[in-house]
């Protein structure tokens, strides 16, 4: 128990009863932990946590005020702010986690891919598996006149961009969007046809043969292994090491109207994220137990534990150690970096969701409109002042620019420098380049 009085300068929350939405995925953990461990209550916040049917319902809920905030795809606040889809000014004071997704293909596709993958000494496939191994399979479908369908969770989801990134890196065209022509299917020129499927329905859709593969967060990849209906081939950690995944989104109006509430909920979430990563993931088993409750993620303990406790099972029996598969606090995972927002914008431009060229400054401006490290810093500083978390756990707020050093760990070895978005867009073989318009 922490007394609220300790941060007299912070002031009481203006709005005490809040409702947060989430989608049943393990990376909603910080919200569940902040509730169950009493971190919200420590801030004087009475929070109701409510599962939502799908990302669209969740976003609309936050926009129309039915929800005060939500666990969101990093692309959602950005897309909403630039008006792709529903237009609304949504901000992010807190980034929820790194990594946590994977790409799964059906058993049949896996059997066809396997001959194209190099083997280790023990006969297991060499990882990371690139989409080059999938290309002959997609080509054979195309020649037979069959569309190669894959699922992802939302047009502006991390999963969509990761799946596209992985496919394109292996020479498979995932298709363009052309919103200015009213074509938002994302299947123009596509060799692999991507469409939206809600996460919990991924395994059953794969089983039904509607899609041959998908990109989704946990527990829905491990679920496919457990049920024997598919094989995860690559984690997003291998596609882009330590990529930002979910964010906590609130409306700009909410943050303006209730500044103390905003800082306090950010504090609670930071504490929860820290708890999740404390002592080298020592609390993860307890976290998994909480998440397996039917009102949170609700999947079986074993399924959630598979990835949350630092391992990941690819083929049945091929369990490998991926200690950073779910990162909630290490590596400054909770800090909303501008460069993370800009990466999403570059991918929106690459695939045509942003139809026209934009100057580098525009990317920076949009990122600064959506990602709010200033709110994060206020929350973090008050936590440091309260001696709840040490200053070393956070970036140095005096010198932090919001841009990560150029990042090198991509599956195709292309370097990403957030300060030069247009140059980055031009470095891809597949994708729209500067000056191109469909």
């Amino acid at each position, binding site marked *: 128990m922490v007394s*609220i009085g300790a941060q007299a300068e912070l002031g009481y929350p203006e709005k005490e009863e809040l409702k947060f939405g989430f989608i049943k995925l393990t990376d909603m953990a910080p919200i569940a932990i902040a509730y169950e461990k009493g971190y919200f209550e420590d801030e004087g916040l009475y929070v109701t946590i409510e599962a939502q049917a799908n990302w669209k319902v969740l976003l609309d809920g936050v926009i129309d005020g039915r929800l005060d905030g939500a666990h969101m795809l990093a692309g959602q606040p950005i897309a909403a702010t630039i008006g792709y889809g529903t237009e609304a000014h949504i901000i992010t004071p807190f980034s929820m986690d790194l990594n946590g997704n994977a790409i799964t293909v059906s058993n049949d596709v896996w059997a066809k891919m396997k001959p194209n993958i190099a083997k280790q000494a023990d006969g297991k496939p060499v990882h990371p598996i690139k989409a080059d191994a999938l290309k002959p399979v997609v080509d054979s479908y195309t020649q037979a006149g069959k569309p190669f369908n894959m699922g992802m969770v939302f047009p502006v989801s991390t999963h969509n961009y990761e799946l596209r990134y992985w496919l394109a890196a292996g020479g498979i065209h995932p298709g363009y969007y052309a919103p200015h022509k009213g074509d938002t299917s994302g299947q123009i020129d596509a060799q692999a046809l991507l469409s939206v499927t809600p996460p919990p329905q991924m395994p059953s859709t794969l089983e039904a043969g509607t899609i041959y593969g998908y990109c989704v967060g946990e527990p829905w990849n491990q679920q496919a292994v457990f*049920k024997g209906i598919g094989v995860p081939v690559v984690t997003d950690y291998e596609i882009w090491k330590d990529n930002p995944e979910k964010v906590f989104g609130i409306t700009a109006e909410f943050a303006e109207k209730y500044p103390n509430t905003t800082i306090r909920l950010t504090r609670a979430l930071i504490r929860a994220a820290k708890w999740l990563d404390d002592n080298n993931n020592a609390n993860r088993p307890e976290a998994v137990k909480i998440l397996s409750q*039917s*009102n949170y993620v*609700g*999947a079986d303990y074993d*399924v959630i534990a598979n990835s949350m406790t630092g391992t990941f099972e690819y083929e049945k029996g091929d369990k490998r150690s991926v200690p950073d598969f779910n990162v909630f606090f290490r590596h400054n995972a909770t800090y909303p970096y501008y460069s993370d927002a800009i990466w999403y914008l570059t991918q929106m431009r690459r695939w045509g969701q942003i139809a026209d060229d934009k100057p580098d400054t525009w990317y920076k401006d949009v990122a600064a409109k959506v990602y709010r490290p200033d709110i994060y810093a206020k929350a973090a500083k008050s936590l440091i002042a309260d001696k709840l978390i040490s200053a070393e756990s956070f970036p140095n707020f005096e010198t932090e620019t919001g841009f990560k050093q150029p990042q090198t760990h991509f599956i195709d070895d292309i370097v990403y420098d957030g300060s030069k978005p247009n140059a980055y867009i031009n470095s891809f073989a597949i994708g729209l380049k500067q000056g191109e318009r469909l």
Partner: protein
Amino acid sequence: MSSISSLENAELSKGKLQSMFAQILASSKVLLLPLVGISCFLLVWAITANSINTSLGKFPGPVAVLTQFDNLYQEHVTERQKAQAFYERQHKRNADRVAKDPSYQAKVRPYTGKETFWDQIVTSLITVMSGFGLAAFLAIPLGILMGLNASVQAAINPIIQLFKPVSPLAWLPLVTMVVSGVYVSADPIVAKSFINSMLTVTLCSVWPMIINTAIGVSRIDQDLLNVSQVLRLSTWTHIKKIVLPASVPMIFTGMRLSLGVAWMVLIAAEMLAQNPGLGKFVWDEFQNGSSESLSRIMAAVLVIGFIGFLLDRGVLAVQRWASWEKH
């Protein structure tokens, strides 16, 4: 009944025997046959469930569902204990704050934890009754007006015929958008989700009631109408003394149909919009995809069916009571 031969030795007159026999036969019709039916159903269910393999394990049989009912009850009890602790913490926090800041008006906030299965049942019942009540309030006067006046009927009929077949799920997005646009308040008395579900239920259950009421009113015996004309009853008295009593059966037929529709619609609406209630319970469990999900959904299905049955019987009971009143 093989026991009859042994009864011949007893000192029972033939008449008594016959009457007993008749009684047993009658009571067996009431009790025995339904029991036989239910047992057969349980048997078939248990056997088929065992041979259906889904990706979430076997389809739940009767035993699994029964276990879930117990689990759901246990969860309810635990949640209540958590709620108790929540209130105690809150009370302490409020007291601390008042001690620091005497001007603070302590407010007790309702428990924020998860809704249990039993909470969801109550929520659904309240929603369906509100939606249905509102529909009745709108439909019955309109139906009477249409039944009395052929011109009104001709004018309104096409609209009703157009909207009657519309699925509740088509209304839902419209209702949601309109409610979120119109029903704006910082501290709403009732939740938006409740209004959404309720209005969707109303929109779907209003039509059978209007139609049946109108038919009932327009088919009143000509003799009764003549009586009313001879007595020169005012319109209001005419409706009260002649129209209503004569059309009660049809109004209630409409109400029974409507309530059935309302209950069905509500579950669908709750599933789609994730509004609190049994529908949400089912959808959440489906999304959970745990090894217990299917048996929990099956438990909910049985409860939904049973409540639907009770609602129907309820309207029937009210109808009987209302028609007794009139005679």
